[in-house]
């Protein structure tokens, strides 16, 4: 009974937040260059991108007007890529963000993260980090396409976990090769004193759409949900499923809170070409403007309607889904420009069992 009441009011909360749409989380895709060649990459990054890195001054001047409306320390700028650490100026960018009141963090594969960079980023006011670790050594290196990527990611994690300053987590892309190794990976992370671990599945977008073997089937998805739910009960490490999908009966068992895709509601991004969107993994046809032509704040305030009013998603398999009122068409990154059907629904897959 309590769950039904709380879910009802959380649904109302989500509707209300879509109306208020306060920006709280801002991605900056500062580069598309990358030092790895991952099989599952959602952004199709390359070692030598045709896009030049975005000058920091372009990004900063686009977001400074936010200070007229928001307390800047209520906004987390998440620097992503590509691999952000390929830029030499990340520390200076971060320091300038802090000087303007914003908080900041990075998403990294950890390959270039060493003690010198660690100290520099901490001194520049970095507050959060996510490091990817996609299995134990063999599987991680396979997915990342580099035989040294595991050892370098672990070195990064050792540095990051040694700092009381940082709010961090390890993120693991669960696939058919590592799914039955998750328990070993969990024990490994606990031995490394890692406090938080987030698991996500491979959606059939970006490079992954050409690697269908990596998309989990019904049995594996249920195994994954049960693994996370059990691990959360054990409380040895803060394990959770990412916010990528509604998971029906597993809601609140695999995450501390209910599913809520906040793209365009609390989350925006400035992409490598200046495009203004929500999460960087959302289909780029949903771009809402461009910082080189438009006022970022004006775009945030006046556009993004397709993400704030999602009744258009009630089609395809969502049309007959009895959980639609809780899910609202799932995560935005699972819709392509045709808007005909969700590309992939974990809830649908799970309930096939």
């Amino acid at each position, binding site marked *: 009974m309590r769950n039904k009441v709380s879910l009802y009011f959380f649904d109302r909360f989500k509707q209300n937040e879509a109306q*208020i749409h306060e920006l709280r989380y801002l991605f900056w895709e500062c580069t598309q260059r990358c030092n790895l060649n991952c099989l599952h990459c959602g952004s199709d990054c390359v070692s030598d991108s045709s896009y030049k890195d975005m000058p920091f001054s372009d990004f900063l001047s686009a977001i400074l007007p936010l200070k007229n409306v928001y307390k800047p320390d209520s906004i987390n700028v998440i620097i992503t890529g590509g691999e952000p650490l390929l830029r030499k100026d990340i520390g200076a960018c971060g320091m300038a963000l802090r000087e303007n009141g914003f908080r900041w963090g990075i998403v990294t594969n950890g390959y270039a993260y060493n003690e010198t960079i660690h100290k520099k980023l901490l001194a520049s*006011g970095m507050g*959060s980090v996510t490091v990817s670790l996609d299995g134990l050594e063999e599987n991680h290196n396979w997915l990342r396409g580099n035989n040294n990527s595991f050892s370098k990611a672990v070195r990064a994690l050792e540095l990051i976990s040694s700092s009381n*300053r940082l709010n961090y987590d390890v993120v693991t892309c669960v696939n058919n090769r590592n799914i039955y190794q998750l328990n070993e990976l969990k024990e490994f992370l606990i031995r490394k004193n890692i406090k938080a671990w987030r698991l996500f599945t491979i959606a059939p977008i970006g490079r992954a759409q050409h690697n269908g073997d990596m998309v989990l089937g019904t049995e594996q998805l249920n195994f994954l949900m049960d693994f996370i739910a059990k691990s959360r009960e054990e409380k040895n490490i803060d394990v959770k499923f990412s916010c990528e999908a509604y998971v029906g009966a597993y809601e609140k068992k695999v995450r501390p*809170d*209910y599913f809520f895709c906040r793209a365009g509601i609390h989350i925006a991004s400035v992409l490598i070409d200046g495009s203004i969107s929500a999460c960087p993994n959302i289909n780029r046809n949903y771009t809402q403007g461009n910082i080189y032509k438009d006022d970022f704040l004006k775009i945030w305030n006046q556009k993004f309607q397709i993400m704030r009013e999602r009744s258009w998603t009630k089609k395809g398999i969502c049309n007959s889904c009895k959980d639609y009122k809780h899910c609202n068409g799932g995560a935005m990154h699972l819709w392509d420009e045709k808007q005909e059907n969700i590309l992939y629904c974990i809830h649908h897959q799970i309930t096939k069992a």
Partner: protein
Amino acid sequence: MKRKILRKIFGTLSFTGMLFVFQACYGAPQDMYRDIYIEGVVKSNKTSLPLSGIKVSVSNNQTSILTDEDGKFKIYTLPAPELLLKFEDIDEAQNGMFQSKDTLVKPNNKAVFITIGMDAK
């Protein structure tokens, strides 16, 4: 205003603990703001000229940074009732040679501003 009131009502009745502590699917966690800011300038006690290339480190974590050409430094570090700042001349004779110096700082808010004088060896 009405929406903000509704936010509180719906948030409370949903029994959801951290309504705004979230992270995007492929994003990092939110910064919990556990740091303070220290800014300062390092000068020669003898000439009062700024000293560049002085290593400034904070004893309570792994943070360190070098002073710039104006002798200035800016650094974020973990908050503590007392912070021991270390100043070391690591570029040998490039700008003269100076004795290392330790200074104890007692921060009483989120930002500290200091001036440090160093003696020649």
